[in-house]
């Protein structure tokens, strides 16, 4: 039982980690980023490349990959997405446009990865050492990823709730039009939130690459998982992200242990659909529109 709970918590932490970037990009910047998973895998590849080619520890690699993720995202937003934001008359129109644009981006990122690394599976071993926590054996790399997910989540949460700029970000998430009325530069804040999401997805990519096997084509799995967590938790809500991620992770490991491993994903989706039926705006989402 304890083991199932620990495993579930760590898996849930990973789901939350994967989803935090998307909740910023989708919730604040209103970009429904279909290429999200591709960026995650790109960060995994970067980490793999640094680790095997330059013998650089992935945890140190974070210091390189995360700022790059931030920079690339801000350029993307400024160059590719700002024109869409400008021309979109309504939020719905922007959602459709961003869906289309990021769909194209998905192919581009995947294409670049395929040319550089080919289609094969990649995996490396880093800190896959057993550690004992409360009498249960866990993998150190997963534990570190979980710990960092909590740290990043908390830091972001504090930054959003305790700082002036964070409040501006939340204001844009709730109502961009009203935010403009109180002298918030919505475009800059959106760009920053999108880039922050890009930095988070880069961090997630590096951390999961320590224990998951990935290939240039596996991005879509992460996009979908992230999307589920984000919507279930309430779009734009970090706390919701964490709770939804943990709920999915726990249900998965409990079902695998006590019911049938074959039903884990079905239960995940059922849980997700159930939450949406009861609370259409997600666990922590406010009803909109």
């Amino acid at each position, binding site marked *: 039982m304890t*083991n*199932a709970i620990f*495993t579930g918590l*760590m*898996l849930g932490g*990973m789901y939350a980690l994967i989803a935090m970037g998307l909740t910023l990009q989708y919730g604040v910047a209103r970009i429904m980023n279909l290429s999200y998973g591709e960026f995650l895998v790109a960060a995994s590849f970067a980490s793999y*490349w640094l680790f*095997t*080619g*330059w*013998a650089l520890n992935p945890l140190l690699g974070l210091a390189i990959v995360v700022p790059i993720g931030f920079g690339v995202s801000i350029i993307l937003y400024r160059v590719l997405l700002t024109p869409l934001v400008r021309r979109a008359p309504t939020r719905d129109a922007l959602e459709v446009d961003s869906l289309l644009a990021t769909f194209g981006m998905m192919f581009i990122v*995947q*294409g*670049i990865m*395929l*040319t*550089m*690394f*080919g*289609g*094969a*599976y*990649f*995996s*490396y*071993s880093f800190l*896959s*050492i*057993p550690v004992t926590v409360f009498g249960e*054996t*866990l*993998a150190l790399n997963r534990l570190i990823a979980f710990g960092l997910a909590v740290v990043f989540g908390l830091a972001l949460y504090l930054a959003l709730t305790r700082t002036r700029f964070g409040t501006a970000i939340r204001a844009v998430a709730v109502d961009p039009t009203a935010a403009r009325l109180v002298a918030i530069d919505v475009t800059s804040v959106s760009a920053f939130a999108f880039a922050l999401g890009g930095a988070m997805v880069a961090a997630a990519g590096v951390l999961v690459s320590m*224990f*998951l*096997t*990935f*290939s*240039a*084509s596996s991005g879509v*799995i992460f996009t979908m998982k992230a999307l589920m967590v984000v919507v279930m938790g309430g779009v734009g809500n970090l706390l919701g992200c964490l709770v939804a991620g943990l709920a999915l*992770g726990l249900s*998965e*490991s409990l079902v*695998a*242990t006590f019911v*049938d*491993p*074959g039903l*884990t*994903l*079905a239960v995940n989706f059922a849980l997700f659909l159930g939450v949406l039926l009861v609370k259409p705006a997600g666990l922590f989402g406010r009803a909109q529109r």
Partner: protein
Amino acid sequence: MLWEENMVSSVTRLAAGLAAIAGVASLSAVEPVLAQSSVKIGYALSRTGPNAGGAAVTTLPNYEMWVKEVNAAGGLKLGDKRVPIEVVQYDDRSSAEEAAKALDRLITQDKVDFILPPWGTGLNLAVGPILNKAGYPHLASTAVTDRAPELAKRWPNSFWLLGTSAGASNTLVELLVKLRGEGKIGDTVAMVSVADGFGIDLSAAARPALAKANFKLAYDKTYPVGTQDLSPMVNEAKALNPDVFIAFSYPPDTLGLTEQARIAGFNPKIFYTGVGTAFPLYKSKFGANTEGVMGIGGWSGDSAAIKDYLARHKAASANGAEPDRWASAVTYASLQMLQQAIERVGKIDREAVIKDLQTGTFDTVIGKVKLENNLPTKHWWVGQWQGGEFYGVGPASNEGARAPVVPKPAWKAP
């Protein structure tokens, strides 16, 4: 030294990426059209999508290497002259619909002389009727299906070289029976399988075979494709303390299960995993910890032909990639068979080539091959990592079979 090599390859990779972007920008990546009087060979492989991982390890490198080798020797020998191979290739995007369309295109538009099959069971079945209708030989070297004998009858142009899932499971159980007879293992088995064609077929065949041999199946679960944390199953299995752990798994799960087993300190006497165990990636990830791990596939690692094949494959691949130790060699052997059949017929006569494939004997990297009812008579079904090489250990009657190392040594810290 190794580190330096890696560094070089890292730099070339970066350069390749930049070059790709530049190349696309100028849209200049058009392949030159060879002069006529060539043998046109077409294939559609999964360059993208979920099948891309398997195709990139097992199929594409062998197709490219074979074409390069044949053309370096002047081409295929038709009668008394050598004719170079011209390749037409497409991406099937891992979709049955795209694969079918691409093959129709190869046949009617490009009018290729021969077609090399796609990767994987599903796609090989999807293109089966098309190749049969158009009368092209179909050398399926990456499909495991229990209907292989029936399919070979239905489509006499098709050759199912990788065998049936019943073959895989029965050989494994035979080996277990033998080891139990020698007193090396007890009779508790824990089995997990991926909820996809491969895992279902193999576990469905293994269950009755294990029961018949009086093994106790203490744990028997399936898990969905794409499960990201397999530790609940490993922990459950460990708690039951089985002698044998069998996983009919896909590559990402094979790596995940091995990693979890190592972390949990789960040391059954036999640790067997599915697709991916024979991948070079498995060795590079687990290093010395591969010792004693069994898996599906294997090859006669001591044979000169295989050693030579391994060396050539490493030399031919972009970054010295090794072949996998199961379907890669069979794929390459299928190409050798096709080549020998074409050269024996001496002209582009697909009907005669099919006839020759059905009746002839072929000299390949996996030894002499003679098909019976379009199926080979020998397969490697159980392999084991021994001293950094994945040797075939079952069936024990195969030429070059090594004795299995049992019990598997305990996992070491990395």
